[in-house]
């Protein structure tokens, strides 16, 4: 066998030397000055700082129609490092999006400074169809001029777009006074204003936080996510809301009113089925808010504005007197056309004397003198105690933002005088919001039980649907009193042949006309015309409140507000599948 230095030895030494070199290189890399640089580089680029933000929750009507959702829009910007042809970018954006050529050109021509000047935002909230157009152009240019190498050919390299969500209200201004709006243009600190958007802002918004996401695939863990904000299902019925809004807008227009509101509620559980207010805003263009609602004009007249209700307040006075046993429907009263209370003379709305009446007649003819007498019979203590029980002077705590309340002056208050007992009895000298009076009236329609008005039926969070529970907030009167008063008001309307009557359905209700105080004096030609009514009287399924502010065709609630009530009821009985009384009774018997 051959001894000495063989080719095997040579191969062995060579391979060993190679292995040693590898080891040396590994040590050198680990201990060289570049190692720190690489370490820093890994730390800088090894993680991505990402802002995770919940999608704002949806708002639905009671049957699942989307009233507020989110659509995809895009922010367009320029990554300066990759720009090849600023002129092409400027021309394209000018043609497709109508952006200012010079402004875009200057932005695209900005020098790229690593770490300092890398990206410029050009515009935001661009619709998806425009992005599709841009994308096609970019691809076409790229095919013709790969990497934008030919400066003579157009290239959109450097032009980028990033998707995000924008609040959208698909039904336009439908229920805008209930929904409120979200200031989506403010992407950093947008918030809900008015209505449920403000009231439930925290619930809808979900969470927003910054998280570090490792880019090293070995360190990749479960990436944190932000669950979507809670979605709300409202008690609103889209069809009823739309119908009521149409009727209100028409009524405001034909009666030359300054505005108005109509509320439709289920008196059994307090669910608001519709709440229309005029004027209204399209929340998609929320920035017109200050134009449509200048100072002094509330966003939602149903909850954000107090007013003197006038004669519809008489239902509370009569309810109190009946419940306290001070009067019965047959209690006689001789109306002389005037009564003195606290040194002041009180007159009827027509300054006339209506002679012999009973309590039904007093309500039918809406006699201020009679109701003042009733209040004096009741006495201030009982009268204001009942008003307190009806929630007058307190918020209803409806789940809409910015509910107003006007304090009720009671005996002992500096602003209370004896005459207030009389004026308050027919709804003057006292101010309420429509929702407040509607809640009070719901007690009469619901066997004495007053329910909390609300617009939230349920909410969906973490994959579960939570239903709200209707709440009885008080029982101001007995069930018998409620029934007696309902009968009295039904007879009043029928005997009066009121414009509020609806063929086939027995309804109860009361008109109201309240003079408006101008510079401390009541004006006889500026009034608030109102009507509150409910039906069917044997089993009320709806209670409707109508208020028209300063109507000019007629000042009287019986002329302008009562027909609006009738129009509303005629429509909603169909939408609620409520057959006429006769058919309903026969169906029950079957």
């Amino acid at each position, binding site marked *: *066998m051959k001894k000495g230095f063989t080719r095997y030895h040579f191969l062995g030494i060579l391979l060993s030397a190679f292995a040693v070199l590898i080891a040396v290189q590994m040590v050198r890399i680990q201990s060289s000055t570049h190692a720190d640089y690489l370490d820093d580089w890994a730390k800088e680029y090894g993680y991505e700082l990402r802002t995770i933000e919940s*999608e704002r929750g*949806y708002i*639905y*009507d*009671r*049957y*699942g*129609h*989307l009233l507020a*959702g*989110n*659509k*995809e829009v895009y922010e367009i910007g320029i990554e300066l490092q990759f720009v090849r042809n600023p002129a092409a970018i400027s021309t394209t954006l000018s043609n497709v999006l109508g952006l200012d050529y010079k402004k875009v050109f200057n932005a695209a021509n900005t020098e790229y400074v690593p770490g300092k000047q890398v990206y410029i935002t050009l515009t935001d909230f661009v619709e*998806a169809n425009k992005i599709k157009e841009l994308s096609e152009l970019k691809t076409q240019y790229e095919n013709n001029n790969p990497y934008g190498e030919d400066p003579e050919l157009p290239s959109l390299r450097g032009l980028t777009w990033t*998707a*995000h*969500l924008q609040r*959208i209200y*698909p*039904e*336009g201004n*439908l229920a805008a006074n209930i929904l409120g709006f979200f200031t989506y243009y403010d992407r950093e600190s947008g918030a809900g204003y008015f209505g449920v958007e403000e009231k439930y802002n925290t619930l809808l918004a979900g969470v927003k936080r910054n998280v570090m*996401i490792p*880019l*090293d*695939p*070995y*360190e*990749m863990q*479960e*990436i944190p*996510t932000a669950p*979507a904000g809670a*979605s709300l*299902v409202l008690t609103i019925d*889209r*069809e009823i809301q*739309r119908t009521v809004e149409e009727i209100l807008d028409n009524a405001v227009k034909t009666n030359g009113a300054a505005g108005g509101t109509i509320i439709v509620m289920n008196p059994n559980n307090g669910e608001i089925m519709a709440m229309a207010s005029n004027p209204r805003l399209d929340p998609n263009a929320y920035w017109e808010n200050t134009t449509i609602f200048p100072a002094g004009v509330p966003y939602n007249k149903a909850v954000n504005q107090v007013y003197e209700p006038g004669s519809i307040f008489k239902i509370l006075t009569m309810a109190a007197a009946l419940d306290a046993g001070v009067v019965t429907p047959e209690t006689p009263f001789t109306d002389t056309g005037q009564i003195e209370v606290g040194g002041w003379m009180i007159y009827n709305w027509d300054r006339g004397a209506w002679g012999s009446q009973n309590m039904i007649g007093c309500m039918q003819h809406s006699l201020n003198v009679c109701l003042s007498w009733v209040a004096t019979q009741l006495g201030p203590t009982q009268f204001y105690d009942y008003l307190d029980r009806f929630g007058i002077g307190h918020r209803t705590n409806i789940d809409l933002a910015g509910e107003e309340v006007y304090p009720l002056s009671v005996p002992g208050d500096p602003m209370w005088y004896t005459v207030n007992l009389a004026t308050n009895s027919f709804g003057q000298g006292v101010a309420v919001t429509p929702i407040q009076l509607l809640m009070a009236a719901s007690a009469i329609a619901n066997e004495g039980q007053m329910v909390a008005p609300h617009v939230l*039926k*349920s909410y*969906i969070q*973490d*994959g*579960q*649907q*939570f*239903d709200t529970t209707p709440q009885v907030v008080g029982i101001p009167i007995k069930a018998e009193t409620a029934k007696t008063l309902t009968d009295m008001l039904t007879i009043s309307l029928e005997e009066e042949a009121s414009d509020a009557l609806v*063929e*086939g359905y027995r309804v109860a209700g009361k008109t109201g006309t309240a003079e408006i105080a101008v510079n401390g004096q009541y004006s006889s030609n500026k009034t608030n015309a109102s009507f509150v009514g409910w039906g069917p009287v044997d089993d009320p399924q709806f209670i409707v409140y109508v208020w028209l502010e300063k109507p000019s065709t007629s000042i009287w609630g019986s002329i302008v507000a009562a027909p609006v009530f009738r129009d509303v009821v*005629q429509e909603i*009985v*169909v939408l609620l*599948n409520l*057959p*006429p009384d006769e*058919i*309903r009774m026969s*169906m029950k018997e*079957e």
Partner: protein
Amino acid sequence: MRLIQAFKLSPWRIHARTVGFFLLTLVVVLVVASVYLSISGLAANAGLDAYRLDLKRLDLEREIAHRKATLALITSAPAMEERALSMGFEKISPDDAIYITVPGYTGRRAMVVAPPPGINESGRQLVKSVYRESLWDWLFTGINSLGSGFLGDGS
């Protein structure tokens, strides 16, 4: 006098055995390295997939939201009314309504899109535990399950 075995492996046999041992060791090392390399590659791939899928998820969530909004626009009240009118439908008046009793029908039900509280899925882990446990976890879990199998749980 000691007996000395008159046998000695020939040098080429010793070399062959040495080379054989070396190659065997090399193969074992290579197999182990390959397994680790493969697992590392799979893990890296899974990590990248997780990252990509997360981005995809965000895209899909936006797309779902957008489609919901688009659908709502198409089925909005004014759009539906316009469509109904163009198809010859008319708005019903109370006089035209015909009411019939449908046994068992309780009217339109309010929207229900999610289960009520009580069916709690919020604590459910997105990533199964089998993908989280280490080799030791897996080993001990296996041993424990074997142990409980032998001992029986008495149930």
